[in-house]
């Protein structure tokens, strides 16, 4: 079944809930190798998004929703995560502009545009121990699933699973971007908080589609 604006709304609702639930986990990951504010920042950003989304008319498209999410995150999430996630959602809004529903190929375009936004903004590559280490495997897995004829829910499930594996795989890495890059070898053994929050976000997208 193709995904519509109901799915986009549900994704945001679940993302806000899961980020609130995992706030302390993200704070603790960020304390190890960053400045310790990632959990608070993401929770604050998505709380603000939830408030604004309730004022958006019910007929607002997925693209409208993503744009609102992006602009709100940029304005309310302190630190690098605001511009990074904000740019991701704004690029996703552009990728879905004018579409009533999103099919499997449309989802791949959406995820690719979001990932490309993160890369353009942060200039990180795979292996730099950043959120890109969750996003790029997710995009690749989504593309492979769509190629095999999977429906949108299955495409998102594949993306979420790959993002989780990608986040886990940041643990042995030395960081080359972001605050953790100042730590050198001391970052080894710690999971990147941005990759972890990316995995949580993509899992929320998959759960929203599974329930649709």
């Amino acid at each position: 079944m193709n995904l519509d604006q109901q799915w986009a709304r549900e994704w945001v609702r679940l993302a806000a809930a899961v980020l609130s639930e995992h706030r302390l986990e993200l704070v603790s990951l960020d304390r190890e190798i960053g400045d310790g504010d990632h959990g608070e920042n993401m929770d604050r950003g998505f709380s603000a998004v939830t408030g604004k989304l309730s004022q958006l008319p019910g007929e607002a498209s997925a693209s409208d929703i993503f744009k609102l999410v992006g602009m709100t995150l940029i304005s309310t999430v302190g630190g690098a995560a605001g511009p990074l996630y904000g740019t991701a959602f704004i690029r996703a809004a552009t990728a879905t502009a004018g579409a009533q529903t999103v099919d499997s190929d449309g989802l791949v375009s959406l995820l690719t545009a979001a990932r490309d936004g993160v890369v353009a903004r942060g200039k990180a590559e795979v292996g730099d121990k950043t959120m890109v280490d969750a996003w790029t495997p997710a995009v690749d897995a989504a593309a492979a699933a769509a190629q095999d004829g999977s429906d949108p829910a299955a495409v998102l499930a594949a993306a979420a699973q790959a993002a989780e594996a990608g986040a886990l795989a940041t643990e042995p890495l030395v960081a080359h971007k972001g605050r953790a890059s100042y730590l050198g070898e001391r970052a080894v053994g710690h999971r990147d908080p941005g990759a972890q929050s990316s995995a949580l976000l993509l899992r929320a997208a998959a759960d929203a589609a599974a329930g649709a």
Partner: protein
Amino acid sequence: MSASVGLVFVSHSDKVAAGLVEIARQMAPSVAMAAAGGTDDQAVGTSFQKVGDAIRAVNSGSGVVILCDLGSAILTAETAIELLDPPGHEVHIVDAPLVEGAVAAAVAAETGAPVAEVIAAAQSANRSAPDDAKDPPAAAGGYRRIVTLTNRDGLHARPAAEFVKLAATFGVPVTVNQVDAKSLLGIMSLGLVSGATVEIASDESGGAAAVDALADLVESGFGEK
């Protein structure tokens, strides 16, 4: 003369950003400068809204130069530029040491320099030593004067800024002990204190007026004595 280039300082701390305006303002009283420090609720971080407001506030059509502190300040500034409403501002982020770059950019903007020269001035702060001094130009002919610094602070801070501003009003290349007379940081890094001997020179025909004006300024003691 058209309006000067505007400057925006983006820092994780509102105090740092405001302090930069304070320091730079001393040498560039008429340049439009804005601080964009801290988050919207004055916590440590950067604000998309503050950066956007700052750009709009200082842009008078001659362009805006932004200096940033740590990584996410650059991400916020880049995002603010990309989504600026209304669009169409000429905005550049310069990678330069914050304090030295801010002062150098402000002094260049004060002279009415175009945006490319303001950027170059800020970037010149990336050099720890004045490279120009190691490579003296072949002086054939030209005009030079040797004067002694009599003022208390020598060629530092405010006097140096005054000197650079005057040098920029002449269209000819002039050097101070072989360093470009228009480079604030180049001159300041010569470390010329009170009592030092200074050679002001121009190899260009027509450079004499500029050399005389600058030598007279040095001999005047910059009004501080």
